[in-house]
Structures are given as structure tokens and as C-alpha cells.
């Protein structure tokens, strides 16, 4: 395994690595799926809107480290090698153990938040889409305040512009920020609501695309207003 400096080239190969792929399969079938079923419990609305295959881009609000594994558990196990969460290099590849787990078990594609020397940070994402992968992105950029949505970053719009045929599927998650918010290590069981929105097409304009996306999240969040959590 190469270090974080060659992130753009290694991102593509990790998911097909044999022993890692087996570990990843075991981790999801023996730990993630049973834990999601028993400790959390999902209330998934509009399951039919989830993409059946790649390429596709899932965008979700981000409140917890559990967001990624829970989103990945929505898909059949055979699609696991296709699921690629996009994660920030500066956070996930800082510590060696975390980096190993992020790359091999979660199968992340590292994203350089502040690229240096004119490197194109979206290139590995485009390559993954061209291979038929399903990307998982959190356009808020960070987990932030639990159960509160913040402004969306427009990197997703650049990606959508370059691959206008790939469906962008918004998913609103509620409850995981209560179960395991930022800075907490103790998981408290809560039911989780997941609302899948209709796919958004590239509208030809970055600002309009971002407005569409924000409006879609707004609509999903209002399908079932969550109880108070101060």
C-alpha cells in the first residue's frame, strides 16, 4: 500500500485487492449489517429510488461516522466493490491505522480538499464513475453540528457538469447524529430515518444545480419533521 502522497493513483486499485475485498465483505456482512439491523433499525422511504447499478453519485447530509456504513448497507452485498465513499485526505489518511481502514475496509476514494500544484482533485472520481462505481459524497464537507444541515459545497456540481449523464441521488438521513455524533465514542441506539430523493440531472448551470440539490434536501427533510434534539 502506498502512502497518502500518491492518493490519486492508488485510489482506483484498493477495492479490487483480494484479501482486502474479503475482509471488507466480512466486515459488512458480520458487523455492519447486523448492527444496523439490531442496534439502529432503519426506516427507509422510497427504496425504489436507489440506483440499481453504477455509475451513480449518492449525496447525503453528514452527521456521524455511521453515515457511510449505513448508506453502504442499503445496497446488496454484491454491489459492495462498486461502493466508493469519497473522503478527505487530510482527515482520513492522517493516521496510519485509520488510513488502512478507510482504504481497505471502507474502500474510500481520497479527495484532496486543497490540491497543490494544479492537480485535478476530481480526476479519480471521474475515473471511478467511468468504471461504473457508485460514489458516496457528503457535500456539506464535514459532520459539523449534529442533526443540523449546513451549506453545500459546490464540488459536486463540478463533478456533475463533467459527467452529466450520471444520476445524482440525494439521501436525507436523520437520527445517526443522535446515535453517534461528532466527538462521541459511545453508540446510543436510535431508529434512523432515510429518505431517498429523486435523481437530479445536470441543469447546465452550477448555481441552479446547487439550488436544485438544496431544495431537494429541504423537501426530504420535511417529509417527516424529526423530534426536537437540543
Amino acid at each position, binding site marked *: 500500500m502506498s502512502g497518502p502522497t500518491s492518493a490519486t493513483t492508488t485510489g482506483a486499485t484498493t477495492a479490487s485487492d483480494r484479501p482486502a475485498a474479503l475482509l471488507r465483505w466480512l466486515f459488512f456482512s458480520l458487523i455492519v449489517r447486523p448492527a444496523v439491523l439490531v442496534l439502529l433499525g432503519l426506516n427507509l422511504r422510497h427504496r425504489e429510488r436507489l440506483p440499481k447499478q453504477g455509475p451513480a453519485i449518492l449525496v447525503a447530509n453528514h452527521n456521524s461516522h455511521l453515515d457511510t456504513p449505513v448508506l453502504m448497507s442499503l445496497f446488496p452485498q454484491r454491489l459492495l466493490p462498486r461502493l466508493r465513499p469519497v473522503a478527505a485526505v487530510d482527515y482520513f489518511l492522517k493516521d496510519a491505522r485509520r488510513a488502512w481502514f478507510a482504504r481497505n475496509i471502507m474502500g474510500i476514494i481520497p479527495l484532496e480538499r486543497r490540491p497543490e500544484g494544479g492537480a485535478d482533485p476530481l480526476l479519480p472520481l471521474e475515473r471511478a464513475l467511468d468504471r461504473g462505481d457508485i460514489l458516496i459524497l457528503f457535500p456539506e464537507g464535514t459532520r459539523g453540528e449534529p442533526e443540523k444541515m449546513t451549506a453545500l459545497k459546490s464540488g459536486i456540481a463540478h463533478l456533475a457538469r463533467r459527467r452529466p449523464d450520471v444520476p445524482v441521488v440525494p439521501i436525507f438521513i436523520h437520527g445517526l447524529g443522535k446515535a453517534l455524533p461528532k466527538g462521541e465514542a459511545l453508540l446510543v441506539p436510535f*431508529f434512523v430515518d432515510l429518505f431517498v430523493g429523486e435523481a437530479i440531472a445536470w441543469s447546465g448551470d452550477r448555481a441552479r444545480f446547487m439550488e436544485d440539490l438544496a431544495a431537494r434536501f429541504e423537501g426530504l427533510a420535511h417529509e417527516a419533521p424529526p423530534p426536537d434534539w437540543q
Partner: protein
Amino acid sequence: MFVRLDPTIWWTIAGIYAVLLLASVLVFGVGRRVPALGSRDLCQRVTSWWIMATLFAIAILLDRIASLVFLGFVSFLALKEYLSLIPTRRADRRVLFLAYLAIPVQYWWVGTEWYGMFIIFIPVYMFLLLPVRMVLAGETQGFLRAAGTVHWGLTICVFSLSHAAYLLMLPGDDAAAGAGLLLFLVIVTEANDVAQYFWGKLFGRARVTPSISPNKTWAGLIGGILTSAVLAGLLAFLTPMSWWIAALIGAAGGIAGFCGDLVMSAVKRDLGIKDTGGMLPGHGGILDRVDSLVFTAPLFMHFIRYFYY
């Protein structure tokens, strides 16, 4: 673990499946011609009943420990649903965790037949411990509401429901007799729910409590109580009661179950929701299913314990 070979238990479970089979023929077979019977809601309800009855039957037919684990898990699901619905405070995450920990402890008292501890653990010790843990968290805003709602949920989902589990232990070494008591309680309570729904749909007109639940009618209530009384009389062989006492208890259970249903309806109204969850298609959430059991279990357990054991 072993399968109990007590014939009365086996025959009763066979009877449950016979009723389910009849319901399936009505809903999926006749329902194709009569749209009122074949509605999506009814089909989902019957399918969910098959799954619930099978899980319950397996838990009963295995040994006592399996039955206790099953009921403890139902308590866990109910509490999780409740805590996900009510407003909670971020500062109380560890308090909620403590509330979850009360479940294995409470069912441990049941399994070890420590009646005194079983009966005071949640009303006394958890009642004192939860607010102390809240004080340590240091958040006073909304303190009273948080302390009240969390303990209320613990009482409903864990304390009340564990009374159904305690029925298993009442006859001492005679495990089959305990299983018979639990079967009697659950069948009569659930049949009462179905009967109230059924009579209400057929003849219901005047509403009992229009401001809380528009679906509850006098015809449903009275039809449910009578049905439960007859069924309880027929099932008296599962218990040490004579048939007419069992029938009276069945009628009382019909009223208690109705009250439990109403209380949960009021909670849902307060929270502005229709169902407590989506776990059981056709029924709603787990609390929608056990709301009447929460009321019938303690009353039935104390009646039986006081007069028969």
C-alpha cells in the same frame, strides 16, 4: 435448549396457525373478489401476523431463557422506538444508554425469580438513578421533561412488558404451566385488538373518545370485550382458572387493552404522528402492537400471582 413437548401448548399454537390460515384465505383468496377484504392494509397486517406469531411460537417452544431473551428484545425494540420519537436532549445521551442497560438487568431479576427486586428496580432504583445521571451531565434546561419522559418510557416498555415475562416463572419448576399463562395473556390481548377492529369496522358508529382516537367505537369496544371473554373461557385450560373466572378476566383484559391502546393514541397525538414506526407493515411500529399488552400484562400477572401462586 430443548423443545417443550407439552401437548396443550402445541395444540394452542396449532390453533393460532389455523386462525392465521383462515385469515389468509379470507384476505388473499376471497379478498380478490371482495375489495374490502383484500385491501393492501389487511394483506400486510396478516403477513406481519404470520411473522410475529412464528417468532413468538419459537420463543415459547424453546426453553424459558429463549422466551426471556425474546421478550427482553421486544422491550428493547419498544424502548428504542419510544426514545426515537420523543424529544430528547443531546446532554442525555448517556442517560438514555443507562435506560437501555436497565433492560437486561430487569429481565435478569425475572430469570432469577427475585420478585422483590423485579418489582422495585425500575419504579425505585431507576427512578432515582436516571435523574442523578442527568444532574452529572449538568444540563438543567428541560430537566423535568427529560426525567419524566425517559422514566415513563422505561416503565411502559420495560417494567410493564417484563410482567408478561414473569408469568413464565410463576409456577416454579413447571415451565409448561408458565408458558401456558404467557400464551393465554398474549392470545387474549392480541385477539381483543383484532376483535375490536373487526366489530368496529362492521357495526361501529358512535365513537367512544372522538378527541383521542376516531377509530374507537362502542360497537368495537363491546364486541371486543365479549369476544375476549368467550375466547378466554375457551382457553382456560392453559391456566389454573376455572372457565368462568377466565371469561371474566378476558372481559377485564378487553377493557385494559382498550385503555392501553387509547393511552398510546394520546401519546401519538401529542407527538403529532400517526404510527410509532414502520417495523410491522400494516400495524405500524412495535409500540402500536404492544400498547394493549403493556396494560394487560401487569394486571393479569398480579391477579394470577395473588390468587393462584
